Protein backbone atom coordinates (compact mmCIF):
# COMPACT_ATOMS: atom_id res chain seq x y z
CA UNK A 1 0.00 0.00 0.00
CA UNK A 2 1.48 3.36 -0.98
CA UNK A 3 1.68 6.18 1.51
CA UNK A 4 -0.53 8.37 -0.63
CA UNK A 5 -3.44 5.96 -0.71
CA UNK A 6 -3.07 5.55 3.03
CA UNK A 7 -3.54 9.28 3.60
CA UNK A 8 -6.45 9.24 1.18
CA UNK A 9 -8.05 6.43 3.11
CA UNK A 10 -7.47 8.23 6.42
CA UNK A 11 -9.21 11.34 5.08
CA UNK A 12 -12.10 9.30 3.74
CA UNK A 13 -12.47 7.52 7.07
CA UNK A 14 -12.31 10.70 9.18
CA UNK A 15 -14.46 12.95 7.06
CA UNK A 16 -17.13 10.53 5.90
CA UNK A 17 -17.04 6.77 6.27
CA UNK A 18 -16.11 6.60 9.95
CA UNK A 19 -16.99 10.18 10.94
CA UNK A 20 -16.74 10.55 14.75
CA UNK A 21 -19.96 12.55 14.94
CA UNK A 22 -22.20 10.82 12.41
CA UNK A 23 -21.01 7.20 12.46
CA UNK A 24 -19.08 6.56 15.65
CA UNK A 25 -21.50 8.87 17.53
CA UNK A 26 -18.72 9.89 19.90
CA UNK A 27 -18.70 13.13 21.85
CA UNK A 28 -22.45 13.64 21.58
CA UNK A 29 -22.68 15.68 24.76
CA UNK A 30 -20.69 18.71 23.53
CA UNK A 31 -21.94 18.10 20.00
CA UNK A 32 -25.56 18.60 20.98
CA UNK A 33 -25.12 21.10 23.79
CA UNK A 34 -22.90 23.67 22.13
CA UNK A 35 -24.32 23.81 18.62
CA UNK A 36 -26.88 26.54 19.29
CA UNK A 37 -24.96 28.93 17.05
CA UNK A 38 -22.44 28.52 14.26
CA UNK A 39 -19.84 30.54 16.17
CA UNK A 40 -20.00 28.28 19.21
CA UNK A 41 -19.79 25.25 16.93
CA UNK A 42 -16.68 26.55 15.16
CA UNK A 43 -15.08 27.43 18.48
CA UNK A 44 -15.60 24.01 20.02
CA UNK A 45 -14.77 22.29 16.72
CA UNK A 46 -11.42 24.06 16.48
CA UNK A 47 -10.61 23.38 20.14
CA UNK A 48 -11.42 19.68 19.72
CA UNK A 49 -9.45 19.53 16.47
CA UNK A 50 -6.39 21.05 18.12
CA UNK A 51 -6.55 18.69 21.09
CA UNK A 52 -7.07 15.69 18.83
CA UNK A 53 -4.08 16.49 16.60
CA UNK A 54 -1.78 17.19 19.58
CA UNK A 55 -2.88 14.13 21.54
CA UNK A 56 -2.62 11.80 18.53
CA UNK A 57 0.87 13.07 17.73
CA UNK A 58 2.05 12.74 21.33
CA UNK A 59 0.47 9.34 21.90
CA UNK A 60 2.04 8.07 18.70
CA UNK A 61 5.44 9.53 19.55
CA UNK A 62 5.59 7.79 22.91
CA UNK A 63 3.92 4.55 21.85
CA UNK A 64 7.12 2.51 22.18
CA UNK A 65 7.93 3.65 25.73
CA UNK A 66 4.53 3.24 27.32
CA UNK A 67 3.88 -0.10 29.06
CA UNK A 68 0.53 -1.36 27.87
CA UNK A 69 -0.84 -1.85 31.41
CA UNK A 70 -0.74 1.87 32.17
CA UNK A 71 -1.39 3.24 28.69
CA UNK A 72 -4.93 4.43 29.33
CA UNK A 73 -4.10 6.62 32.37
CA UNK A 74 -1.19 8.06 30.42
CA UNK A 75 -3.42 8.85 27.43
CA UNK A 76 -5.90 10.53 29.76
CA UNK A 77 -3.10 12.56 31.35
CA UNK A 78 -1.88 13.73 27.96
CA UNK A 79 -5.37 14.63 26.74
CA UNK A 80 -6.21 16.43 29.98
CA UNK A 81 -2.99 18.42 29.79
CA UNK A 82 -3.70 19.53 26.22
CA UNK A 83 -7.29 20.42 27.02
CA UNK A 84 -6.18 22.52 29.98
CA UNK A 85 -3.68 24.32 27.76
CA UNK A 86 -6.31 25.01 25.10
CA UNK A 87 -8.68 26.20 27.81
CA UNK A 88 -6.11 28.61 29.24
CA UNK A 89 -5.24 29.91 25.78
CA UNK A 90 -8.89 30.48 24.89
CA UNK A 91 -9.49 32.15 28.22
CA UNK A 92 -6.63 34.51 27.46
CA UNK A 93 -7.22 35.24 23.78
CA UNK A 94 -10.90 34.56 23.01
CA UNK A 95 -12.45 35.54 26.31
CA UNK A 96 -16.03 35.99 25.10
CA UNK A 97 -16.11 32.63 23.38
CA UNK A 98 -14.51 30.99 26.40
CA UNK A 99 -17.44 32.22 28.43
CA UNK A 100 -20.09 31.11 25.98
CA UNK A 101 -18.59 27.61 25.64
CA UNK A 102 -18.48 27.37 29.41
CA UNK A 103 -18.24 23.90 30.88
CA UNK A 104 -18.01 22.19 27.48
CA UNK A 105 -14.43 23.28 26.96
CA UNK A 106 -12.99 21.30 29.92
CA UNK A 107 -15.40 18.51 28.98
CA UNK A 108 -13.38 17.89 25.80
CA UNK A 109 -11.30 15.64 28.08
CA UNK A 110 -14.21 13.25 28.27
CA UNK A 111 -14.89 13.32 24.53
CA UNK A 112 -14.58 9.64 23.64
CA UNK A 113 -13.57 10.52 20.10
CA UNK A 114 -10.20 11.67 21.38
CA UNK A 115 -9.28 8.76 23.62
CA UNK A 116 -10.85 6.47 21.04
CA UNK A 117 -8.46 7.65 18.32
CA UNK A 118 -5.51 7.54 20.72
CA UNK A 119 -6.24 3.92 21.59
CA UNK A 120 -7.46 2.65 18.23
CA UNK A 121 -5.06 4.36 15.86
CA UNK A 122 -2.35 6.62 17.29
CA UNK A 123 -0.95 4.06 19.72
CA UNK A 124 -0.25 1.65 16.85
CA UNK A 125 0.92 3.91 14.02
CA UNK A 126 3.78 6.28 13.19
CA UNK A 127 3.61 9.94 14.16
CA UNK A 128 2.93 11.31 10.70
CA UNK A 129 -0.04 9.09 9.99
CA UNK A 130 -1.38 9.50 13.54
CA UNK A 131 -1.23 13.28 13.29
CA UNK A 132 -2.98 13.17 9.94
CA UNK A 133 -5.62 10.86 11.38
CA UNK A 134 -6.16 13.31 14.25
CA UNK A 135 -6.51 16.14 11.75
CA UNK A 136 -9.07 14.30 9.62
CA UNK A 137 -11.10 12.95 12.54
CA UNK A 138 -11.04 16.41 14.10
CA UNK A 139 -12.16 18.00 10.84
CA UNK A 140 -14.93 15.44 10.51
CA UNK A 141 -16.14 16.23 14.01
CA UNK A 142 -15.82 19.99 13.47
CA UNK A 143 -17.77 19.80 10.20
CA UNK A 144 -20.66 17.98 11.84
CA UNK A 145 -20.63 20.57 14.63
CA UNK A 146 -20.71 23.38 12.10
CA UNK A 147 -23.51 21.95 10.00
CA UNK A 148 -25.57 21.33 13.10
CA UNK A 149 -24.74 24.78 14.48
CA UNK A 150 -25.66 26.49 11.21
CA UNK A 151 -28.96 24.60 10.86
CA UNK A 152 -29.98 25.29 14.43
CA UNK A 153 -28.98 28.94 14.27
CA UNK A 154 -30.92 29.54 11.05
CA UNK A 155 -34.01 27.74 12.31
CA UNK A 156 -33.77 29.08 15.84
CA UNK A 157 -32.97 32.73 15.37
CA UNK A 158 -32.78 33.30 11.61
CA UNK A 159 -29.14 34.40 11.62
CA UNK A 160 -25.71 33.07 10.72
CA UNK A 161 -22.41 33.94 12.45
CA UNK A 162 -24.22 35.66 15.31
CA UNK A 163 -21.49 36.56 17.83
CA UNK A 164 -18.63 35.80 15.45
CA UNK A 165 -16.78 38.73 17.01
CA UNK A 166 -16.41 36.67 20.18
CA UNK A 167 -14.27 34.21 18.24
CA UNK A 168 -12.48 36.32 15.69
CA UNK A 169 -12.30 39.81 17.14
CA UNK A 170 -14.34 42.94 16.54
CA UNK A 171 -14.00 43.03 12.76
CA UNK A 172 -15.98 39.79 12.53
CA UNK A 173 -19.26 41.35 13.63
CA UNK A 174 -19.78 42.26 9.96
CA UNK A 175 -20.01 38.54 9.17
CA UNK A 176 -23.35 38.34 10.91
CA UNK A 177 -26.07 37.57 8.38
CA UNK A 178 -29.70 38.13 9.17
CA UNK A 179 -31.50 35.62 6.97
CA UNK A 180 -34.95 36.33 8.20
CA UNK A 181 -36.31 37.78 11.42
CA UNK A 182 -39.29 36.75 13.43
CA UNK A 183 -40.75 37.97 16.70
CA UNK A 184 -40.78 34.74 18.63
CA UNK A 185 -37.97 32.35 17.98
CA UNK A 186 -38.40 28.75 16.92
CA UNK A 187 -37.51 27.50 20.38
CA UNK A 188 -37.35 23.82 19.55
CA UNK A 189 -34.31 24.35 17.35
CA UNK A 190 -32.39 26.03 20.14
CA UNK A 191 -33.31 23.65 22.95
CA UNK A 192 -31.70 20.20 23.36
CA UNK A 193 -34.57 18.19 21.78
CA UNK A 194 -34.08 20.18 18.58
CA UNK A 195 -30.42 19.18 18.62
CA UNK A 196 -31.33 15.49 18.78
CA UNK A 197 -33.86 15.84 15.98
CA UNK A 198 -31.46 17.75 13.73
CA UNK A 199 -28.74 15.21 14.49
CA UNK A 200 -31.13 12.42 13.54
CA UNK A 201 -31.82 14.07 10.18
CA UNK A 202 -28.10 14.51 9.58
CA UNK A 203 -27.39 10.83 10.20
CA UNK A 204 -30.37 9.82 8.08
CA UNK A 205 -29.11 12.10 5.32
CA UNK A 206 -25.67 10.51 5.42
CA UNK A 207 -27.15 7.02 5.31
CA UNK A 208 -29.40 7.99 2.42
CA UNK A 209 -26.41 9.25 0.43
CA UNK A 210 -24.47 6.07 1.25
CA UNK A 211 -27.42 3.93 0.15
CA UNK A 212 -27.76 5.92 -3.06
CA UNK A 213 -24.09 5.44 -3.86
CA UNK A 214 -24.26 1.75 -3.01
CA UNK A 215 -27.22 1.34 -5.36
CA UNK A 216 -25.30 2.93 -8.19
CA UNK A 217 -22.15 0.99 -7.48
CA UNK A 218 -22.99 -2.59 -8.75
CA UNK A 219 -23.22 -1.39 -12.37
CA UNK A 220 -19.49 -0.67 -12.46
CA UNK A 221 -18.62 -3.52 -10.13
CA UNK A 222 -17.15 -5.72 -12.87
CA UNK A 223 -14.17 -3.61 -13.71
CA UNK A 224 -13.67 -2.38 -10.16
CA UNK A 225 -13.47 -5.66 -8.30
CA UNK A 226 -9.72 -5.80 -8.20
CA UNK A 227 -9.47 -2.33 -6.77
CA UNK A 228 -12.07 -3.04 -4.11
CA UNK A 229 -9.99 -5.85 -2.69
CA UNK A 230 -7.11 -3.48 -2.28
CA UNK A 231 -9.11 -0.79 -0.56
CA UNK A 232 -10.73 -3.09 1.96
CA UNK A 233 -8.23 -2.93 4.75
CA UNK A 234 -9.68 -0.81 7.52
CA UNK A 235 -9.80 -2.31 10.99
Amino acid at each position, binding site marked *: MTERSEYKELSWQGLWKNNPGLVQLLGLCPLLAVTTTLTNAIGLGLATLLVLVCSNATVSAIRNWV*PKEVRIPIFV*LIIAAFVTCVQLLMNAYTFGLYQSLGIFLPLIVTNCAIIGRAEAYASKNPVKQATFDGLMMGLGFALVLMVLGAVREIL*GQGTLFDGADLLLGDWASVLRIEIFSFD*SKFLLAILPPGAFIAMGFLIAGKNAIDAYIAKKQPKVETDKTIERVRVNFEG
Partner: protein
Amino acid sequence: MKVAVQNNAKVLALFAIACTALVSVVNWLTKDTIIRQQQQQLLSTLYDVIPAERLNNDLYHDCQVIAGNDYLGGDDEQMAYIARMDNMPVAVAITSAAPDGYNGKIKLIVALNVDGSVSGVRVLKHQETPGLGDKIETRKNDWIYGFNGKTVEAENDLRWAVKKDGGMFDQFTGATITPRAVVKAVKNTALYFNKNKDSILSAQTSTCRDNND
Protein backbone atom coordinates in the same frame (compact mmCIF):
# COMPACT_ATOMS: atom_id res chain seq x y z
CA MET B 1 6.01 -8.76 38.96
CA LYS B 2 7.30 -6.26 41.49
CA VAL B 3 9.71 -4.85 38.96
CA ALA B 4 6.91 -4.42 36.43
CA VAL B 5 4.78 -2.55 38.96
CA GLN B 6 7.69 -0.31 39.89
CA ASN B 7 8.45 0.33 36.29
CA ASN B 8 4.85 1.24 35.48
CA ALA B 9 4.68 3.53 38.48
CA LYS B 10 7.84 5.29 37.36
CA VAL B 11 6.56 5.81 33.81
CA LEU B 12 3.24 7.07 35.10
CA ALA B 13 4.97 9.47 37.51
CA LEU B 14 7.20 10.75 34.73
CA PHE B 15 4.23 11.49 32.51
CA ALA B 16 2.37 13.16 35.37
CA ILE B 17 5.38 15.42 35.96
CA ALA B 18 5.76 16.21 32.25
CA CYS B 19 2.06 17.03 31.82
CA THR B 20 2.00 19.17 34.96
CA ALA B 21 5.06 21.02 33.73
CA LEU B 22 3.40 21.71 30.38
CA VAL B 23 0.23 23.02 32.03
CA SER B 24 2.27 25.16 34.43
CA VAL B 25 4.20 26.75 31.60
CA VAL B 26 1.03 27.59 29.65
CA ASN B 27 -0.60 28.86 32.82
CA TRP B 28 2.40 31.06 33.54
CA LEU B 29 2.36 32.42 30.00
CA THR B 30 -1.35 33.21 29.92
CA LYS B 31 -1.92 34.26 33.54
CA ASP B 32 -1.47 37.98 33.03
CA THR B 33 -3.53 38.10 29.85
CA ILE B 34 -6.40 36.28 31.56
CA ILE B 35 -6.42 38.68 34.50
CA ARG B 36 -6.29 41.61 32.11
CA GLN B 37 -9.18 40.19 30.09
CA GLN B 38 -11.30 39.75 33.21
CA GLN B 39 -10.54 43.29 34.37
CA GLN B 40 -11.33 44.69 30.95
CA GLN B 41 -14.59 42.78 30.81
CA LEU B 42 -15.64 44.08 34.22
CA LEU B 43 -14.48 47.60 33.46
CA SER B 44 -16.39 47.75 30.20
CA THR B 45 -19.51 46.59 32.04
CA LEU B 46 -18.89 49.19 34.73
CA TYR B 47 -18.53 51.95 32.15
CA ASP B 48 -21.72 50.66 30.54
CA VAL B 49 -23.71 51.34 33.68
CA ILE B 50 -21.82 54.44 34.80
CA PRO B 51 -20.70 56.51 31.79
CA ALA B 52 -16.95 57.15 31.88
CA GLU B 53 -17.32 60.91 31.58
CA ARG B 54 -19.09 61.09 34.93
CA LEU B 55 -16.06 59.93 36.90
CA ASN B 56 -12.34 60.42 37.09
CA ASN B 57 -11.21 57.95 39.72
CA ASP B 58 -9.76 54.47 39.31
CA LEU B 59 -13.15 52.78 39.38
CA TYR B 60 -11.83 49.23 39.31
CA HIS B 61 -9.69 49.70 42.41
CA ASP B 62 -12.16 51.81 44.40
CA CYS B 63 -14.08 48.86 45.62
CA GLN B 64 -15.79 47.60 48.77
CA VAL B 65 -16.66 44.04 49.73
CA ILE B 66 -20.20 43.68 50.98
CA ALA B 67 -21.03 40.67 53.10
CA GLY B 68 -23.85 38.58 51.68
CA ASN B 69 -27.35 39.52 52.80
CA ASP B 70 -30.94 38.98 51.75
CA TYR B 71 -31.16 42.26 49.86
CA LEU B 72 -28.34 41.21 47.56
CA GLY B 73 -29.55 37.73 46.80
CA GLY B 74 -28.12 35.50 49.50
CA ASP B 75 -24.91 34.57 51.25
CA ASP B 76 -22.46 35.31 48.45
CA GLU B 77 -20.09 38.22 48.95
CA GLN B 78 -20.85 41.14 46.66
CA MET B 79 -18.77 44.05 45.42
CA ALA B 80 -19.47 47.76 45.31
CA TYR B 81 -17.47 49.91 42.89
CA ILE B 82 -17.58 53.57 43.76
CA ALA B 83 -17.41 56.17 41.00
CA ARG B 84 -16.10 59.55 42.10
CA MET B 85 -15.61 62.85 40.33
CA ASP B 86 -12.85 64.86 42.03
CA ASN B 87 -13.29 62.70 45.13
CA MET B 88 -17.03 63.38 45.34
CA PRO B 89 -19.00 60.14 44.97
CA VAL B 90 -21.37 60.22 41.99
CA ALA B 91 -22.56 56.65 41.71
CA VAL B 92 -22.01 53.14 43.00
CA ALA B 93 -22.12 49.90 41.02
CA ILE B 94 -23.15 46.99 43.23
CA THR B 95 -23.03 43.37 42.12
CA SER B 96 -26.13 41.51 43.15
CA ALA B 97 -28.07 38.36 42.42
CA ALA B 98 -31.68 37.44 41.76
CA PRO B 99 -32.07 34.19 43.69
CA ASP B 100 -35.41 33.27 42.10
CA GLY B 101 -34.56 33.07 38.38
CA TYR B 102 -36.27 30.41 36.28
CA ASN B 103 -33.09 28.37 36.19
CA GLY B 104 -30.85 29.33 39.09
CA LYS B 105 -29.41 32.63 40.21
CA ILE B 106 -29.21 35.58 37.85
CA LYS B 107 -26.11 37.64 38.59
CA LEU B 108 -26.49 41.36 38.06
CA ILE B 109 -24.62 44.57 38.42
CA VAL B 110 -26.76 47.53 39.47
CA ALA B 111 -25.41 51.05 39.30
CA LEU B 112 -27.12 53.61 41.49
CA ASN B 113 -26.59 57.35 41.49
CA VAL B 114 -25.98 58.96 44.86
CA ASP B 115 -29.53 60.37 44.79
CA GLY B 116 -30.84 56.78 44.74
CA SER B 117 -31.96 56.62 41.09
CA VAL B 118 -30.81 53.76 38.88
CA SER B 119 -27.95 54.62 36.53
CA GLY B 120 -27.94 51.28 34.74
CA VAL B 121 -28.38 47.53 35.16
CA ARG B 122 -26.62 44.68 33.37
CA VAL B 123 -26.86 40.92 33.66
CA LEU B 124 -23.46 39.39 34.37
CA LYS B 125 -24.42 35.72 34.28
CA HIS B 126 -27.61 33.73 33.88
CA GLN B 127 -28.99 30.39 32.73
CA GLU B 128 -32.46 31.48 31.65
CA THR B 129 -34.22 29.77 28.75
CA PRO B 130 -32.70 30.82 25.41
CA GLY B 131 -35.23 32.72 23.33
CA LEU B 132 -37.51 33.49 26.26
CA GLY B 133 -35.80 34.53 29.48
CA ASP B 134 -32.56 35.62 27.86
CA LYS B 135 -34.13 38.87 26.69
CA ILE B 136 -32.61 40.34 29.85
CA GLU B 137 -29.32 40.46 27.90
CA THR B 138 -28.60 43.70 26.08
CA ARG B 139 -27.64 41.88 22.90
CA LYS B 140 -31.06 40.24 22.71
CA ASN B 141 -33.40 42.97 23.86
CA ASP B 142 -33.55 46.54 25.17
CA TRP B 143 -35.61 45.58 28.18
CA ILE B 144 -32.91 46.08 30.81
CA TYR B 145 -32.52 49.76 29.83
CA GLY B 146 -36.01 50.27 31.24
CA PHE B 147 -34.53 50.58 34.72
CA ASN B 148 -32.46 53.66 33.83
CA GLY B 149 -33.48 56.70 35.83
CA LYS B 150 -36.08 54.91 37.96
CA THR B 151 -36.07 55.38 41.71
CA VAL B 152 -37.31 53.13 44.48
CA GLU B 153 -39.36 55.29 46.82
CA ALA B 154 -40.04 52.83 49.61
CA GLU B 155 -39.97 49.19 50.59
CA ASN B 156 -43.58 48.77 49.46
CA ASP B 157 -43.21 50.69 46.21
CA LEU B 158 -45.87 49.02 44.08
CA ARG B 159 -44.56 50.36 40.78
CA TRP B 160 -41.52 48.10 41.13
CA ALA B 161 -43.12 45.01 39.64
CA VAL B 162 -43.89 43.65 36.17
CA LYS B 163 -47.02 44.99 34.48
CA LYS B 164 -48.82 41.71 35.04
CA ASP B 165 -48.47 42.34 38.78
CA GLY B 166 -49.52 45.97 38.46
CA GLY B 167 -46.06 47.47 38.17
CA MET B 168 -44.29 49.56 35.56
CA PHE B 169 -41.97 47.03 33.91
CA ASP B 170 -42.81 44.90 30.88
CA GLN B 171 -42.74 41.15 31.10
CA PHE B 172 -41.80 38.96 28.12
CA THR B 173 -44.30 36.86 26.24
CA GLY B 174 -43.98 33.40 27.68
CA ALA B 175 -41.58 34.36 30.41
CA THR B 176 -42.74 36.26 33.47
CA ILE B 177 -40.58 34.60 36.08
CA THR B 178 -37.29 35.97 34.76
CA PRO B 179 -38.25 39.68 34.58
CA ARG B 180 -40.09 39.38 37.89
CA ALA B 181 -36.90 38.06 39.51
CA VAL B 182 -34.75 40.77 37.96
CA VAL B 183 -37.13 43.59 38.92
CA LYS B 184 -37.22 42.33 42.50
CA ALA B 185 -33.43 42.02 42.68
CA VAL B 186 -32.87 45.53 41.32
CA LYS B 187 -35.42 46.91 43.74
CA ASN B 188 -33.76 45.14 46.68
CA THR B 189 -30.33 46.34 45.64
CA ALA B 190 -31.60 49.91 45.45
CA LEU B 191 -33.20 49.53 48.88
CA TYR B 192 -29.94 48.17 50.27
CA PHE B 193 -28.08 51.12 48.83
CA ASN B 194 -30.54 53.63 50.29
CA LYS B 195 -30.11 52.09 53.73
CA ASN B 196 -26.32 51.72 53.66
CA LYS B 197 -25.38 54.67 51.49
CA ASP B 198 -23.26 56.37 54.13
CA SER B 199 -21.20 53.38 55.10
CA ILE B 200 -20.49 52.44 51.48
CA LEU B 201 -19.56 55.94 50.37
CA SER B 202 -17.58 57.02 53.42
CA ALA B 203 -15.12 54.12 53.26
CA GLN B 204 -11.82 55.44 52.04
CA THR B 205 -9.70 52.35 51.54
CA SER B 206 -10.55 49.62 49.11
CA THR B 207 -11.35 46.30 50.72
CA CYS B 208 -11.31 44.09 47.63
CA ARG B 209 -8.41 41.67 47.93
CA ASP B 210 -8.19 40.54 44.31
CA ASN B 211 -8.03 44.05 42.98
CA ASN B 212 -5.01 45.15 44.95
CA ASP B 213 -2.51 43.58 42.64
